[in-house]
């Protein structure tokens, strides 16, 4: 898959993830009475002490992360596509995001013994972004393919 297509995929997935994160953030801020949670234990997970990281709600970090990845992927569609600094930033962001997502999923599975549907969706989106970004190729400095 070309560099351009991968960036486009990241923009679209990042946008969906951004909405998921904003939804959870608004819930934590008290805008919604209850989470729409078809399956799983969203309330339990969101009410847990692990729903905050470094004193801030996890969805806030998620919102910032998705917005950041979205911005970088957008840049990857423009004139700076394939720039070393952009690829390095993307590689760093998606790897960090995947690790944090794995940490949160681990908390859900092994400590809380409860899964939040939205967190699972976000974890899948984060993984998809990681796969699309292919940080191993970005760091290797492969030339951007066009088309």
């Amino acid at each position, binding site marked *: 898959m070309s560099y351009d297509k991968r960036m486009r995929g990241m923009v*679209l997935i990042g946008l969906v993830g*951004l*909405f998921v994160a904003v939804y959870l953030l608004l819930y934590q801020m008290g805008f*919604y*009475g*209850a989470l729409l949670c078809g399956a799983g234990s969203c309330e339990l997970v969101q*009410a847990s002490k692990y729903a905050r990281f470094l004193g801030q709600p996890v969805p806030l970090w998620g919102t910032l992360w998705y917005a950041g990845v979205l911005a970088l992927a957008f840049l990857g569609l423009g004139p700076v596509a394939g720039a070393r600094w952009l690829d390095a930033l993307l590689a760093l962001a998606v790897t960090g995001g995947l690790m944090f997502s794995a940490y949160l999923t681990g908390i859900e599975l092994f400590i809380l013994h409860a899964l939040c549907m939205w967190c699972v969706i976000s974890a899948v989106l984060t993984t998809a972004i990681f796969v699309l970004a292919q940080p191993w190729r970005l760091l290797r400095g492969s030339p951007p393919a066009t088309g």
Partner: protein
Amino acid sequence: MANAKATGGKGFYILIAAVVVVGGFLLLRAGGSTEAPNLTPIALAGGDVAADMSSGTAIGAEDAPVVIMEFSDFLCPHCRTFNGLSGKLLRQNYANTGSMRWISFDFPLWPESWAPAIAAQCAKRQGKYFEMKDLLFARVDSWSQGGNPNRKFVDYARDLGLDAGAFKSCVDGQETVAEVQASRAYGEALGIQSTPSIFFNDEPFQLTGGDYGYGAIEEQIKAVVAGGE
């Protein structure tokens, strides 16, 4: 080639616009109506509401025309918001006027919710359940950050003018765990699955609206009182 790319680019931005529109619409929809809040009757799979309310903590006249039962969890963010925006105000404005009797039940949803519920019940032994409840919700960010929260609970008891020694012995010894168990068991028997859950004169209701039900509940109280029911 250039044309194909331009066409593809156009399609891509249309796709982005579609995601933004759909996402924004869903976010607004999830927020519920911005109009006046209302109480929506809901069906629960539980049993007889009036069976046993003794595990709750009541405030207000026993013969009040309105009885509101509230099931909450101290770690549930919406219980905190509901208590701050509605519960506390309703108790202040209507429990002392004879219009409403309010009964709070502790419904801990997960293991770490039990300690504050036990603490609230320990405060109840000294006649300050609701004061402790308000304090626990107001300071949840402090006591929920890990470790044993009992030391902070004792500080809160001191702030409320309770006998700190008796309170400490109560929370450390988990002396009120049976009360919390009974309260939770009552909620389970009613079929409660989430918090906050509210019953207005034995009818389970879902809270909707921006003020977490204050306006709607107040309206219902006034209607019942005016109707002489």
